[in-house]
């Protein structure tokens, strides 16, 4: 329980850091740490597939993409941020924590516990047999992503 709580607090702290840190590189790494901790929580809660994906894709692959992108951008341009952000985020965050603390404990007691145990079936079975329609959707998401990149980074033919 203590380990679990520590992990959860770690997720929250690193997520907040990812938002408030001004240096993009540090922010990307904070996000990676947060998702690494989340992956460990998944493992501890008997969801190894979710854990593997969280750590390999979100903590690994996406962080690499972020770092690469940051390395390719120029650093000398100062981006002006609205002052509003500085106090709106903490305010919303604190309000969220307060509401969460007040509401969630009561709610969780009312949620019936699902049958626990390791994830049923092999990974292939889950993906191909029981969530196949989502796979079609995933293919469509990838197509949409690829076409978006092609469209947004195309050479402007006549506009320029």
């Amino acid at each position, binding site marked *: 329980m203590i380990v679990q709580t520590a992990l959860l607090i770690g997720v929250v702290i690193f997520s907040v850091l990812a938002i408030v840190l001004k240096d993009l590189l540090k922010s990307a790494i904070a996000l990676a740490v947060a998702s690494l901790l989340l992956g460990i929580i998944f493992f501890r809660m008997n969801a190894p597939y979710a854990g593997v994906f969280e750590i390999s894709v979100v903590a690994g692959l996406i962080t690499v993409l972020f770092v690469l992108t940051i390395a390719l951008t120029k650093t000398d341009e100062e981006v002006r941020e609205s002052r509003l952000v500085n106090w709106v985020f903490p305010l919303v965050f604190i309000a969220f924590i307060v509401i969460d603390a007040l*509401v969630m404990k*009561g*709610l969780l007691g*009312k*949620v*019936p516990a*699902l*049958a626990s145990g390791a994830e049923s079936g092999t990974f292939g079975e889950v993906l*191909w*047999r*029981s*969530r*196949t*329609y*989502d796979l*079609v*959707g*995933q*293919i*469509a*998401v990838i*197509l*949409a*992503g690829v*076409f*978006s990149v*092609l*469209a*947004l980074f*195309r050479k*402007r*033919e*006549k*506009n320029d």
Partner: protein
Amino acid sequence: MIILFVVLPLVVAGILPLVGKVSRRVLPDVLANATLLVLLAYAAIAGRALIAGGPVVQQLAWLGESVDIRLALDGLSLFMLLAVALVGFAASLFSIDYMEHYGAKANYYALYLVMIAGMNGLILARDLFSVYIFLEVAAIASYALVAFGLAHDELEAAFKYLMLSVVASAFLVGGIAVIFGMTGGLDFAAVGGALRELNAGPVMAVASAFFLLGFGLKAALVPFHAWLPDAHPSAPAPISAVLSGLLIKVSGVYALARIFLNVFGLTPALSTALMGLGVLSMVVAAFLALGQKDMKRMLAYSSISQVGYVVLGIGIGTPLGIAGGLFHLFNHALAKGLLFLSSGSVQQATGTRDLDEMGGLGRRMPLTAATNLVGALSIAGVPPLNGFWSKLLIIVALVQAGHPVYAVIAVLVSVLTLWYYLLIQRKAFFGQLNEKWAAVKEAPFWMTAATVLLAVLCVGIGILFSSTITTWIQPAADVLADGIHAVTGSWGF
């Protein structure tokens, strides 16, 4: 093979960029339009025969082995598929000439077809998580399409749209997680059945609030509407037509109605919330539309206001109210599609969207002016056009259900709507021809063909409204009015 509605546009989208290397214009035009025409014919002609014996629930087999692609086609989903195919076809017809100067046409059609596939996939889904996935498919394609012109304001609008849309997605995933936690299932029928046995008021309230926020953002109901007046006007005209005509209704209103009415069951509290949001959107957006100088921005605010009517109608929960809401959804899809396409014709001819700069364009573009007038009068609810009948149904349903105040508001907002549409008509098309536009010509053939097609439909459905209601609207409304039973009973669980 109802999966064709999802797979056909996806496959064509996949090969389009390759085809674009061979033929930059003609082949992509033909392929995209032919695809949508096939879908339209399938929905309009074969669809009703398919569901003649009740809803079709299909489990697909792949190479002799059954896989878990289970789709459901009933009156409501068929009706939505028809709306998507119809407006989608008109907008892609319009794109033939309009997208000429943007370049990268094959790529444009590919994104466009992915967006259509996403909407169709959402409509056929019978599982909460599939709804979310296909909602994202359509949304991701639409972000890129809004930014397709690559100018500064287009990119900014797309970014704002992306950010608010992500918030909506987060709420939806949250809601789905809560439901999954409670019932252990995602399938509509399983969730509907489990929720009926489970007595979990407060948790349901949280899940409902999450869904209301998420779908409210997607449908751009006031007060979640901030992204729409930026995103819709910035997109190329055919995309504005599809976003306003279809996307906010499929990923907002359809998903909301399907989940709240068929899976959760409409409680009095939910009904009040939906009607309240509907009336608020109707009134606030109508006043905001009045103050606009940008033609497309005015149309965008009008979309929010008209979606308010749809949600108000469905929120009443009576069979007549639901039928009125769905009929208005269809009519608004046609008319708003038409208006955005006409505004595209005007923008392409004059290079501006500012109403104050226009004037007298009716002399130079008589067909565009006429079709625009049909669309405007239809949305404003002038008899005998289609929009009149759907608004009438909603107002009658409101009176019958004992909400006379809402009925009066609906009538007054309708007057307001007529006012700002006549403002567009007067400033853009009537009056003295501004000298600047002496050389303006009527829009090219395919653009005019698309607007004329939609205008003819607006008039035709207005005249043949009773047969439209019996053949298309009533079967769809019956599904929603049937409540939870529609999915737990007839979808077979």
